[in-house]
């Protein structure tokens, strides 16, 4: 039975919870989540630094897709522009300027990998237990995507002070980066 037929058979409603089933969204989420997790694991385990940067691109693109799935279109587009467009290029430049070769590199991993894996697993276990316990089957309530105009209104009214602080921070970071990286 195809998913649309299944959707029609259940009348568009989940018989268990009574909420609306969003089959297409759930399939899209599953594909993106699996892709992101696999790429993230490959990113922290690969020995090739350039490949790690490219795996990071996949994770960031998946995050952008997740934002769009959540109805936050502006955040998704900003993610693509700033992260994939600018930050990854910065990383690739950083790799080029600090490495002689582009092949595999044996000394990118420390000695305490099992300890780090234990810490990561512990963090995940505690957070997952707390989340499952707190938000058992809370459903997302947004009916339609948020409007970019509303986001802009909010930034330039209620959050104008943090916005200006971020502007100054970016300027300071720009000047700081130039001063630190300049040779003399």
């Amino acid at each position: 039975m195809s998913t649309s037929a299944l959707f029609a058979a259940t009348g568009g409603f989940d018989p268990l919870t009574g909420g609306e089933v969003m089959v297409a969204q759930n399939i899209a989420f599953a594909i993106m989540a699996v892709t992101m997790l696999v790429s993230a694991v490959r990113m922290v385990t690969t020995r090739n630094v350039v490949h790690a940067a490219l795996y990071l691109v996949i994770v960031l693109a998946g995050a952008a897709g997740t934002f769009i799935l959540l109805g936050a279109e502006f955040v998704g587009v900003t993610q693509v522009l700033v992260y994939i467009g600018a930050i990854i290029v910065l990383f690739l430049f950083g790799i080029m300027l600090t490495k002689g070769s582009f092949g595999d590199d044996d000394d990118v991993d420390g000695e305490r990998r099992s300890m780090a894996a234990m810490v990561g697993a512990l963090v995940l276990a505690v957070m997952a237990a707390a989340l499952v316990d707190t938000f058992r089957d809370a459903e997302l309530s947004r009916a339609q995507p948020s409007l970019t105009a509303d986001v802009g209104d909010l930034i330039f009214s209620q959050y104008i002070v943090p916005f200006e602080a971020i502007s100054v921070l970016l300027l300071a970071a720009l000047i700081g980066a130039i001063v630190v990286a300049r040779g003399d």
Partner: protein
Amino acid sequence: MYLNQFLLLSAALFAIGVYGVLARRNGVLVLMSIELILNAVNINLVAFAAFGNQLAGEVFALFVIAVAAAEVGVGLAMVLLLYRNRKSIDLTQIDMMRG
């Protein structure tokens, strides 16, 4: 869609990022893992914005993106300086401030 599916994805990405920060000793790879952590935070913020049907979460996700851009700029400048002075970006060898 459940709220928890997004929160658990975000928690998993966060844990992978924590592993990356702790296990790697290449400075650029540690910075990349920090980006992973910040992205997990962003997914959380946007998911809660959709859950509460309000926009403050999205606004702060945008702020986090801006802070991440600044952080990468300064971080990579420091890694470059480190490479120029020590010819290596192995973070386990950065112990000149050890007493």
